[in-house]
């Protein structure tokens, strides 16, 4: 079956068998091996990607179901100026050991921060509860996501949005 989708901002067209799962399509057909396959039974979250902005287990979505969708994988996190602040935070806080679960945890963490930029520790823990890590004990993963959240908030403060600049220029306070 012919499918067309956007992956990390680029349009791809492919011909896939209906039974091919999205995780295998990404890894085998597109060479995007950042997405890991851990359990292959919908239990571990190593295969987490964003499908139209929502974090899902790509071992449990058919590639043909992603036709017309926007997919973001861990490879899509890095920007022109290097690693995403969430990735840097995992590095600094030792949010990984073997790294097998990491691409999935990063994608769940990214989705969480998109919908809730300042999550509490409990919200972080529930946000990543679909991702199993057998190494870290989660403490450093939680720390890394908190640190990323602070970094991203700091970055937002440093670079005021256009409307904030306008408000500042007109001398009005926006509270």
């Amino acid at each position, binding site marked *: 079956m012919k499918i067309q989708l956007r992956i990390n901002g680029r349009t791809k067209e492919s011909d896939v068998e*209906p039974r091919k799962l999205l995780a295998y399509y990404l890894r085998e057909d597109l060479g995007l091996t950042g997405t890991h396959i851990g359990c292959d039974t919908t239990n571990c979250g190593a295969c*987490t990607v964003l499908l139209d902005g929502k974090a899902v287990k790509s071992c449990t979505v058919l590639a043909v179901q992603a036709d017309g969708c926007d997919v973001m994988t861990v490879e899509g996190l890095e920007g022109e100026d290097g690693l995403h602040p969430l990735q840097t935070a995992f590095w600094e806080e030792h949010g990984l050991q073997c790294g097998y679960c990491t691409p999935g945890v990063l994608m769940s963490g990214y989705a969480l921060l998109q919908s809730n930029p300042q999550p509490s520790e409990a919200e972080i823990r*529930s946000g990543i509860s*679909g991702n199993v890590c057998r190494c870290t004990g989660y403490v450093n993963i939680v720390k890394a996501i908190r640190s990323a959240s602070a970094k991203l908030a700091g970055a937002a403060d440093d670079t005021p949005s256009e409307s904030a600049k306008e408000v500042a220029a007109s001398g009005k306070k926006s509270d």
Partner: protein
Amino acid sequence: MFPNSFEYMAPTTLAEAVELMQRHEYDAKVLSGGQSLLPMMKLRMAAPPILIDINSIDELRGWKEESGFLRIGALTRHSELENAVELRDRYPLLAETAVWIADPLVRNRGTIGGSLAHADPASDWGAAMLALHARVEGIGSGGERQIPMDDFFVDTFTTALEETEIATAVLVPKPAGRTAGRYLKIERKAGDFAIAGLAIHVVLASDGTVAEAGFGICACGPVPLRGKRAEEYLLGKKLTPETIDDVSRMVPEDADPEDDLRGSAAYKRDVLRVFAERGLSDIAKELQGEGVVG
């Protein structure tokens, strides 16, 4: 891991989907969130020759209140109901339940229609919809029909839906007064199916007596079960420490748990008793204010 090969069809209208189901009968299976069906197909426990993917059918999405019911489209994802702020006040049990289902990743795909049609004994939506005295709306060769929840679950993984019928919506009756809901669940690890789960729905009349009571039990029998004894007893009474105590001993009587890896039958019954007591005390506080209970 790969499922057996199958033919894939993705109709964009309900009429088309119904037609495809009629044409292919036993060969066809509906694919909704895929969070139960695809894992089973990968393990080759299911091998339907044809998959009818309903994810592109917009008519099956979203919810609206109409003629005495909240109509929830079958394709509504668990996470959508978890986050539906506008339903919190009148249908609190929906978000209360949704947050307990699996993990955030499964909740972003899994649907309420798929969860009911799958008829797992541990279906959290099964327990909640029993407590809400809901109905499932289905469409097939005989046209449209509504199936009351009491008749919906026939046996483990078996519902009253015909082989070629598609569940289109769940109809939740509008509450006739101040409403509260609680979902209590114990699981072995985060995101797992329940060891035991209890859905509680209470509506109070203006004089403070119970106008509607609903109890739904999951993982304690071949199908999700309704706590009828407790419901009947509570109607017309006030929530007091005494009535709550009585009810909490009635709820386990309607359960039918077995000893298994998740726990002994006696343990599960005891969990249900504690859940009923805890949930109702909480509801009493919410609807009647502090101090009435305890």
